[in-house]
């Protein structure tokens, strides 16, 4: 009996294998956010060495988000060649196709998160290990949902790749900025704060910051869990439906 987990593992390891066989590309892309961090952190208002504490969880969220919003991009090519069609004919459970592909984008990002944390430790960054693990689990759920939406976008834009890239780019940046990933939202105008309050990512980002700081049993955690779960469920429902309907 193939279970959802076994199917997800099959999809995930298929996706990851080319990377493992040629790991240079990942190693290169892992260094990118470190550069970003090095150049951006000095610009943040530093109130008693807090900048890293605030910024590192945000950077981790950002790189996961970039990665999982690309879930559909490999798919575009596989839709054209026929290998996606071949996978759809197998008995693999539909959610496994979505989750497996999204996880393949996220797992390297977690390795990257570990790298960022290690690099920041000598500069005074401190974190709570349990909180961090819970935070990453919440982030993973959110990213599975977003990855599934990216997958859906790829299905909707087959034969017109520009559509995928346009929509992906147009949505990603507002999503990031309105979650206070790069700059704090608190001091913004009322309308901006209202938009941020409607952005599920805001709750995830707040939860990450609190969790990395060790505030585990707080309402921010609950908010993050709920927001991530809602996005994951919606993403998977929409994705499975799109697969059924796609011509």
């Amino acid at each position, binding site marked *: 009996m193939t279970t959802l987990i*076994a199917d997800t593992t099959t999809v995930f390891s298929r996706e990851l294998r080319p990377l493992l066989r040629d790991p240079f590309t990942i190693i290169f892309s892992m260094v990118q956010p470190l550069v970003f961090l090095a150049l951006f952190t000095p610009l943040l208002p530093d109130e008693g060495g807090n900048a890293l504490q605030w910024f590192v969880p945000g950077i981790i969220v950002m790189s996961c988000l970039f990665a999982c919003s690309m879930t559909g991009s490999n798919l575009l090519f596989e839709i054209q*060649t026929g*290998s996606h069609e071949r996978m759809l*004919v197998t008995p693999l459970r539909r959610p496994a196709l979505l989750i497996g592909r999204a996880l393949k984008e996220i797992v390297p990002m977690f390795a990257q998160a570990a790298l960022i944390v290690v690099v920041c430790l000598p500069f005074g960054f401190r974190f709570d290990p349990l909180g961090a693990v819970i935070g990453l689990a919440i982030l993973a759920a959110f990213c599975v949902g977003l990855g599934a939406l990216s997958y859906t976008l790829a299905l909707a834009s087959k034969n017109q790749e520009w559509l995928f890239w346009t929509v992906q780019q147009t949505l990603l940046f507002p999503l990031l900025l309105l979650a206070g990933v790069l700059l704090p939202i608190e001091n913004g105008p009322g309308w901006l704060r209202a938009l941020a309050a409607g952005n599920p990512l805001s709750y995830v980002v707040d939860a990450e910051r609190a969790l990395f700081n060790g505030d585990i049993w707080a309402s921010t955690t609950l908010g993050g869990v709920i927001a991530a779960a809602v996005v994951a469920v919606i993403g998977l429902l929409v994705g499975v439906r799109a697969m059924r*309907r796609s011509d």
Partner: protein
Amino acid sequence: MIETRGLTKHFKDVRAVDGIDVTVRAGELVALLGPNGAGKSTTLRMLTTLIPPTSGTATVAGFDVVRRQREVRLRIGYIGQGNGAGHSQRGRDELISQGRAYGMSVRDARARAAELIESLGLAEVADRRVSSLSGGQRRRLDIAMGLIHAPELLFLDEPSTGLDPQNRANLQEHILALRARHETTIVLTTHYLDEADSMAERVIVIDHGRIIADDTPQRLKDEHVGDRILLGFDAETDAAGAAGVLRAERQGKQVLLHLPDAPRRAPVVLEDLRAAGYPAAEIEVTRPTLDDVFLHLTGRSLREGGAATDKELVEV
């Protein structure tokens, strides 16, 4: 094994498949034949659960293709018109993960992959990136992927397009052997008329999304066209006499005779003519091809418009 009732698929204003009723029994080998855009791939895509029908029903391996998709998927194999193997993957990896997708253990999938790599002549390229393979090598890899779980029902959409004659022959052998060994039911589409003719016991001719003929190749040819004997004479008077004896059409010095089982009966015809005093100078026996059948049914040739030329696989 397959049963469809009024199976229909419309894409916006295109009637790709327009009410197909077909029954395929277990163990049959059926070829779908038709020009580009006839609706062959769309039919297969509905039968393999890839797209929902606009109307009508289909039962495949005992299960409804819309309501029991997973049950259908567990029992079939599908080799699509495109490339099943991912281009950034390696062939062997794809074979193993395909086996895993059908619930095989890693060990079984590995062993089966090795077996297929061997028998499809992929040993040298199986551990290279798929994108570096030639069109024909990629096609053979696709076929290996479709066979990995030895399905009871196999769909192949133009399996031999892009293969050279030797590999086509090899593939045909493979398919026939598979069938002999596992009693696999096989539905394939092809542009090669000779392939449909030599492999399939049953040919379904599709045009504009409808079935216009469905029978054994031999009966299709006998019924719609028949064997012909073209006789040439030295003098028109002989031709006229022969046409009278045979009750056949005459054109100048030639007589055209429609006759079932012509190759066996031609010598008798020659003897009869000699006895009657109108000896033939030349003889040409023509057996119809499936293209003649198609021409008879539609007034168009399958070969026209490049329908029967070797279409290259899409190179990306």
